[in-house]
């Protein structure tokens, strides 16, 4: 009798510990997803037009799943300590629903992260940057985002300034090639925002223009966040799986 008492207490202790970890991870997931959704690097307009919005959808789901995990972990702790079949049954069913949602979020984040290739951003940039149609609001946002990006990261284009030379673009329709082989933002600018040496920039003299592409500056933060949502969610789900199995085993042993 004493031995099975000990086993019961150990199992209860493990389940409480498991639920505490789930609760804390839920809060962490919510915090991470809120940070991602708050658009810290100003890249949301670029992702919105690539129809690769899955990462944001996954992050939004992650916020609510994290809060649900926290609430359910408290319910689980109470149910385990009180050995209440009803509470634990409610806990198991709600946890399964949350599990399903988080599964969807992880898979969406992982799938969309793969689709963020340089070609995707290149095509979008060429078609939308400085697209002169004034009614098109999304293109204006894309232009502003690219200008900010090129200014802050001292980069040009997606793979380099030659993007503007190799392909025709909306930019090329309004800016002559002889005056603007690439946008002015690609030039090294002084404190007033004017090119330090305009002729040097047009010719491509090293030191007067930014020769590296912006793809790393875009994909770095987005990939980090997408990995965070996808793989952290996956880890939480693996842990939750173990805790749920233990809870079901515990539940099946409780007699009325």
């Amino acid at each position: 009798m004493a031995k099975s008492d000990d086993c019961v207490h150990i199992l209860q202790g493990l389940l409480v510990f498991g639920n505490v970890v789930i609760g804390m991870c839920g809060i962490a997931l919510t915090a991470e997803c809120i940070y991602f959704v708050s658009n810290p690097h100003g890249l949301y307009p670029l992702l919105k037009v690539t129809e690769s919005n899955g990462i944001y959808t996954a992050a939004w789901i992650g916020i609510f799943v994290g809060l649900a995990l926290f609430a359910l972990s408290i319910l689980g702790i109470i149910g385990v300590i009180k050995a209440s079949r009803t509470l634990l049954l409610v806990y198991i069913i709600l946890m399964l629903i949350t599990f399903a949602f988080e599964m969807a979020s992880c898979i969406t984040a992982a799938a969309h992260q793969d689709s963020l290739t340089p070609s995707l951003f290149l095509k979008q940039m060429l078609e939308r940057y400085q697209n002169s149609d004034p009614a098109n609001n999304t293109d204006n946002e894309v232009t502003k985002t690219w200008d900010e990006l090129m200014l802050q990261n001292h980069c040009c284009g997606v793979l380099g300034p030659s993007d503007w030379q190799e392909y025709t673009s909306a930019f090329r329709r309004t800016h002559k090639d002889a005056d603007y082989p690439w946008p002015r933002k690609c030039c090294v600018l002084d404190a007033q925002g004017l090119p330090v040496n305009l002729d040097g920039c047009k010719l491509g003299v090293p030191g007067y223009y930014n020769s590296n592409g912006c793809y790393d500056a875009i994909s770095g933060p987005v990939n980090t966040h997408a990995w965070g949502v996808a793989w952290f969610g996956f880890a939480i789900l693996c842990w939750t799986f173990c805790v749920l199995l233990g809870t079901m085993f515990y539940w099946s042993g409780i007699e009325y």
Partner: protein
Amino acid sequence: LPTPPARLPYVPHLPPMALLGKVTATTFALETPLCVFDGHADASDAVWLAVAFANASATFRNPRSRADVPPYRRLPTARSYMTLETAAAAYSCSAPSPPVLRVGADTACRDQGRQDPCNGPLPSPGPYRVKFLLMGCRGPKAETRWSEPILLRRAVSPGSIDPAPTRHGSDVVVIASILASLGAVLATAVLGALGAKVWGSLCHQDLGTDAFTRRSYRTHHIPPALPQPLPPGCGCSPPGLCRSA
């Protein structure tokens, strides 16, 4: 008859240094011909650049005077023009000239239709050949050789870019398969546990051999039997000592 211009062995060429804008869709750059015309040029002479389509360079005739110089705007019909009129002193060895000349840099002159030598952007990718011509008051005095054909960049439409990912990630497959199997195991476990409970309650079986919560045990208390009184037929006053009557 004026003397034919001296043929200098210099060949105009693109600058050797790495410049990303050496050749664009409508412009190209040439290395400045420093020291080339020393010994042939006077202070009043000018050096022109003759630009012609590669297949029209053989038929190019040097202009007899400044008034005969083919202008930029006749490039489509005449298949050649001359531009970049510069004082010969600017190309002497000691002159502080920039190392590169950019052909096609002036977008303003094309629209205004000025008569000055217009360094306008080139209208088509070419290929073009160029040569430098030293013009004096009485006509051309010296010329360089024709350059190699220079082909300008041709831009393609962004519609040709395929944005699909080159490799469909293994990450997705791993995550999806593991999560799907975990989900399936959980669902099976829940259904199995619920099913077992329902089955057990329907069949009224006693399942609780190892119950986790302690139930109160009520033991059936069996009191020990009390000693019965002896039957009255024996009549012994001290027990165990009987006298038969």
